[in-house]
């Protein structure tokens, strides 16, 4: 218990010190994870909605697969992206390995199924409720799906936040494709792993608390924006 209190004090003094290196690491974490959330959301919402409102053979299997992929192990995603982006791999000529964009790619793949699966469920629930109404208005297929997505956008925020949480928290994928290079691809989670390796457990724990505070702040921000928007636009 003492060491946790100690770590909290350490976390506060880390924040108060305004250390430039730490600020850079925090900023990169935000950049990478928010980019991944952006791309994943862009792809996952239409995908989830399409699966929710269309009927085709193998649909159930696809849903099960999508749900299962929510549990993709980060280290496996990291390894696959590593092999794809490596100079010896098919996308090697892009020269992306050990750069922040490689980390964005890995995290996007990691969280896409989370957002898509949660979106699929939410849209399907709403679809059951509104199907008749939408059909009578002449909205079919993808048009109807996107109408629902827009209608339940505030609920879908939680799906996006689940993706964000996963992106901010994972270390397995980014450490492999980013390489944890000082000043280039070092983010919060890889820094924590590194400090743990060095046996500096108090510093590692303090950094962990900083990360948790950061995620808390992001979620609080999202919540208040949602509240404000709901009040304004209904």
């Amino acid at each position, binding site marked *: 218990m003492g060491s946790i209190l100690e770590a909290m004090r350490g976390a506060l003094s880390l924040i108060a010190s305004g250390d430039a290196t730490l600020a850079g690491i925090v900023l990169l974490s935000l950049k990478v994870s928010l980019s991944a959330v952006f791309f994943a959301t862009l792809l996952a919402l239409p995908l989830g909605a399409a699966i929710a409102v269309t009927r085709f053979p193998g649909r159930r299997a696809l849903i099960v697969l999508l749900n299962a992929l929510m549990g993709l192990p980060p280290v496996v995603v990291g390894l696959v992206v590593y092999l794809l982006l*490596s*100079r010896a791999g098919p996308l090697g000529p892009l*020269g*992306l390995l050990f*750069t922040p*964009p490689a980390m*964005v790619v890995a995290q996007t793949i990691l969280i896409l199924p989370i957002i898509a699966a949660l979106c699929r469920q939410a849209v399907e629930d709403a679809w059951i409720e509104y199907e008749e109404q939408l059909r009578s208005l002449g909205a079919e297929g993808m048009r109807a799906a996107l109408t629902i997505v827009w209608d339940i956008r505030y609920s879908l925020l939680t799906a996006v936040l689940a993706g964000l949480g996963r992106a901010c928290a994972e270390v397995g994928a980014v450490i492999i494709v980013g390489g*944890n290079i000082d000043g280039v691809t070092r983010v919060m989670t890889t820094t924590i792993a590194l400090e743990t390796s060095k*046996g500096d*457990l108090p510093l590692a724990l303090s950094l962990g608390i900083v990360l948790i505070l950061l995620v808390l702040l992001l979620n609080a921000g999202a919540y208040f924006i949602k509240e404000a928007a709901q009040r304004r636009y209904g």
Partner: protein
Amino acid sequence: MGLRKVLLSFFLLVFLSAAGAQERFITVSSTTSTEQSGLFKHLLPLFTAKTGIQVRVVAVGTGQALDIGRRGDADVVFVHARPLEEKFVAEGHGVQRFEVMYNDFILIGPKSDPAKVAGTRDIVAALQKIKAAQVPFVSRGDKSGTHFAELALWKEAGIDIAKDKGAWYRDTGQGMGPALNSAAGMNAYILSDRGTWLSFKNRADLAIAVEGDRRLFNQYGVMLVNPAKHPQVKKEMGQAFVDWVVSPEGQKAIADFKIGGEQLFFPNARK
């Protein structure tokens, strides 16, 4: 828009944002010992100040560091496992291997010293005693330079560790730091490089048990990844780094690196 188009534009976007930053840099794959001991933090700014070339270090175990080189994902490899390095060059992945510096391995163990080896110098005898006493021993088990050195020492002690290991031999498959954390938690013996140990903070009840044996010598080597095999290797900048590390200036910078007044690495490049 088809899924393929979406994917394509996604990669294009990511690629463009990466291409924006055009810096002069090389990528060096190296070991955790050189990074975590703080050597690179001391060394690299001096090289960058002289040449304007940034050095990006990916610090992993020697086995993985060589593999990164083998795939052409690094420009220079800086590791410590001579037989593996020579194989790397022989396979044509490295241009030429240069010896850079050495430090030594040390046997770390609990202060209570259940195997009664503390203060001795004979590492082979110490390992035999640990095996005889069946006291906990943590192995890296990750194909790192230190892991290979450990395996060679067991062999020299006449112990076939793959066959003779029991519950006392704990193969953790981790880097040096995490393995030391495990050893601290289990109060176990462990072979470590001196650099990582000196900068390691979570020592708990562990201390140096055996040191100073000639067989604990730990040589580091540096190689340019072969541009003939991997055309994207930054040949000039990579070679500049290799040349600088083995130059009198680079060698002096290595000797100057100290933690608590203790020198960690001893330069020994051949003139």
